[in-house]
């Protein structure tokens, strides 16, 4: 038996239903967050699936969290960042290989979007995470810091450096 956020004990079927509902509601948003960070659809699918697997294994924490949505987002963001580190540590150099120039389902076809995509891929994963959480998903700097397990000042630095890179890359394009 586990407890919901409201402290209500959930039976197994109710727990599964509650988990399915949360997963159903959050998957699309998690996919967007992860895709913004990783810019690779295959890796994004894996990252989101791993996030949901972890959530399933840690249902106690998930349901006890004040905001299951933020709990999942935090796991997903860390999964995206650590996943790349994991691959790199295994001697997988193809950070560029899977990133350039992107999958066939990358968004948009306009020149602006393609230019932005190319510039965005120059950002570090943490810069992408900070920018997508703040500009794409409306989190405050403080919320973003909590999601990225760092300090607000670090988030501001990631955002500032990321924007500077975007500005430069777009200017040079």
């Amino acid at each position, binding site marked *: 038996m586990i407890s919901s956020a409201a402290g209500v004990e959930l039976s197994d079927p109710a727990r599964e239903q509650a988990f399915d509902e949360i997963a159903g509601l959050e998957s699309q948003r998690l996919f967007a967050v992860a895709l913004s960070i990783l810019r690779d659809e295959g890796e994004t699918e894996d990252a989101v699936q791993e996030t949901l697997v972890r959530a399933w294994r840690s249902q106690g924490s998930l349901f006890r969290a004040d905001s299951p949505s933020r709990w999942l987002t935090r796991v997903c963001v860390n999964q995206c960042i650590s996943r790349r580190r994991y691959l790199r540590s295994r001697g997988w150099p193809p950070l560029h290989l899977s990133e350039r120039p992107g999958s066939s389902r990358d968004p948009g076809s306009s020149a602006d979007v393609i230019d932005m995509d190319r510039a965005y891929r120059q950002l570090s994963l943490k810069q992408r995470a900070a920018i997508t959480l703040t*500009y794409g998903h409306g989190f405050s700097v403080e919320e973003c810091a909590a999601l990225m397990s760092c300090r607000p000042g670090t988030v501001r630095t990631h955002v500032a450096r990321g924007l500077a890179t975007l500005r430069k890359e777009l200017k040079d394009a």
Partner: protein
Amino acid sequence: MPEVDSGLETSLRSFLNEIKAQPLPRPLADFEAASMRPRRKALNLFAGAAGVAVIAASVAVFAIELNGHHNTGSPIPGGQSAATPTPEPTPPFLPSPGPGQVPPRFSPPAGQVFAQLPHGPWLIPKTYGTGTETLPTFTLPPNEGIGIEYGCTPIDSKTLDSISFSGNGVPKVLGSDFHFWLSQFSIGNRCSGGIETAGGTGGPVTVRFTADPSVRWVILVYEVPSKAQVIPTPAAASTATSYPGPTPPFLGGPAPAGDKVLIPVTYGTGPVTLPSFTETPNESVQIELGCLSTSPSVNSVTVNDYDPAFAGDTVAGQCFGGSGGGIGSGSTGFSGTVTMKVQAAPTEKWVILVWEGGP
């Protein structure tokens, strides 16, 4: 929040909104925990499936190579459809027809294709070609990787246009017969991109561009500065004791050249508090950990962020009866002293490296 000009902000939000509008792939849309009953067995299956997914992502990169052995079927990796109705973008890289090495005209200018033209040394200078051609063999120095930038006229995703490497000098991570399938890394039929590899033992490498005779292309092959440094044999020092028995695996490799090493390669056994270090403001601390189990059972080695100022990952290396490791990173967000502690069983052997930098 840093100030951002409205033009950039508009473009950025538009870009991120387009990402958000992408449909959820079916495997995720169909995700149902309830389908995993009965629980114990299901959870194992679930974990297994997740493991497969993780491996699949790793293997996805190797799919390129695997496709080289299977000339049938789509080269497009699972989850991506070659038939995705993406409006055709302007070919970014359009070498003009013409004999030999006549400089092509580009649309848009070549500067956008080779956005960051790598510095040398170049292994093969910018070379233009048509259809299938084998480029001159070059010798790759030890520990140096191969980088390529390429572009071509629109390609047909149904064909197996590729850039392949062969020869004794091809880095092992690519396998012996590596094919870089252009359609896998192109948007629609747009054809431009690049790849960088890790280093290997060095030796002769031959690059072959395989394409339909109608395809015109350009390629540049360059040497990727080595990130591979020889890990010195641990000297008799307080932080580096000689390692008895088999060398533990060092999964992440040495610190990239130029990054600041905070704790050098350090071997140890059992729980140890590592020497304190001072972190540079706004820099990430990267931790690599390898371990070697002394029993057939599963043991683990963990690095704790012992200092509460350190907001980072706890790195756990699982030792499955022989090898394993972990990696992590974090930062204090300010210049601070950090002390880490390795937690391990008294007989557990481990090796650790901590440096500053990285992504």
